[in-house]
């Protein structure tokens, strides 16, 4: 099987949220409650256990080159966020039960029949994607429509997306498409356009994202970390510290017992 993924182009996102609903419909997820947020047109806030696609709305006092507005220096950025299906996936590597697996499509899938809700994946994701549903007890996230892929179908969000802001396909093809798009935007003067997480060179901390993005402002603005790292990459230092600590513990115990013996009458 070839590696599959999403290319999400923020410059063609019209913020319609079709992806959010198409995802909920296909996966038959519950609503997340009805809360007004005051955060532009974003009322769902973030990705979560029952929101696997989320559209971010960024109102910023910066113009987009090639676009003139009558409301002063201003632009409205939108992008549909999703599980990144990282090459080095924090959740996958953290999952102790084997509930989270890498599929033949190179995507990351949570097996709901295995997950026991330990919650470790939640802390391990550098993007804040996966979440445990309190009343269900298990961790949930985008499956990249693992059920559909097997049948050659397009994931629900990418299929619904009216403006091809979300494109699904073979990663090689997506990479080429994305690079062409960046070139095109640069030619149009939008020199701030860049690919977020396209590959390991671009984002070594994750080894590249199967769901990568074209953005035009800092990642933080879209609630994406600038230099994410899968925690496992840093765990070596912690394990070394454990080894040191173990030596210390042993030394203290041995020392104390020896001291106790010498001090005996």
């Amino acid at each position, binding site marked *: 099987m070839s590696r599959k993924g999403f290319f999400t182009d923020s410059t063609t996102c019209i913020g*319609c*949220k*079709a992806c*959010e*609903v*198409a995802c909920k*419909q*296909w996966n038959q997820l519950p609503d997340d409650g009805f809360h007004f947020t005051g955060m532009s047109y974003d009322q769902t806030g973030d990705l979560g256990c029952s929101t696997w696609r989320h559209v971010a709305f960024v109102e910023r006092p910066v113009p987009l080159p090639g676009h003139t507005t009558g409301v002063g220096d201003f632009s409205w950025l939108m992008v549909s966020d999703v599980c990144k299906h990282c090459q080095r996936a924090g959740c*996958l*590597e953290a999952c102790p039960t*084997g*509930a989270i*697996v*890498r*599929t*033949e499509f190179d995507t990351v*899938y949570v*097996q709901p*029949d*295995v997950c026991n809700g330990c919650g470790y994946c939640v802390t391990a994701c550098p993007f804040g994607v996966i979440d445990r549903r309190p009343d269900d007890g298990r961790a949930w996230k985008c499956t990249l*429509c*693992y*059920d*559909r892929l*097997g*049948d050659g*179908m397009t994931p*629900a969000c990418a*299929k*619904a*997306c*009216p403006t091809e802001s979300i494109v699904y396909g073979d990663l090689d093809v997506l990479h080429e498409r994305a690079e062409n798009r960046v070139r095109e935007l640069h030619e149009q003067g939008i020199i701030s356009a860049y690919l977020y997480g396209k590959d390991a060179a671009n984002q070594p901390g994750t080894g590249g994202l199967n769901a990568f993005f074209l953005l035009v402002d800092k990642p933080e603005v879209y609630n994406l970390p600038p230099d994410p790292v899968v925690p496992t990459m840093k765990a070596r230092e912690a394990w070394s510290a454990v080894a040191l600590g173990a030596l210390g513990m042993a030394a203290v115990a041995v020392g104390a017992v020896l001291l106790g013996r010498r001090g005996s009458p």
Partner: protein
Amino acid sequence: MGVLDLLSRWPVLRQLLRGDLTALGETAMTERSRELQPRTARADRVVKSVCPYCAVGCGQDIYVKDERIIDIEGDTDSPVSRGRLCPKGSATFQLVTGTHRVQHVLYRRPGGTEWERLPLERAMEMVAERVKHTRDTTWEDTDVNGLNVQRTLGIAHLGGATLDNEENYLIKKLFTSLGIVQVENQARI
């Protein structure tokens, strides 16, 4: 299920047998995951339809299993929509299968404070009677100026932009034959 069977399904053993040190992939998969299928593959039939919201006219595929709808998504054949749907169109499944849909005729009597159930046939009969009564009592052969009008202004209709052409046609046809002229829809409002 025997112990052996259980053991054979224990991924740790598979891990050992395969020498899969990390168990990040297929080794850790369950039967369910291996046999996962889209639910549409289990549909009895796919019915071609059109989105009921705005007038873009997106094509929809409706998947039916056991006379129940299991999925509604965009029709990739449509030259207008190319399989895409907006959030409303994507929510069509909830629109047509939702618990919000009333399943029975309801009746609120004059001065009433709650709905009552009414059999469909009875309700139809009552409405027909009321149309007849109102029409007969408000009929005008001529208007105040003595011009021939052949109508009733006692009955009015509103609605149509969300209905099918065939429905609008019968509405217009029946009501016009009844002398009802106040037939209107959202095209105005």
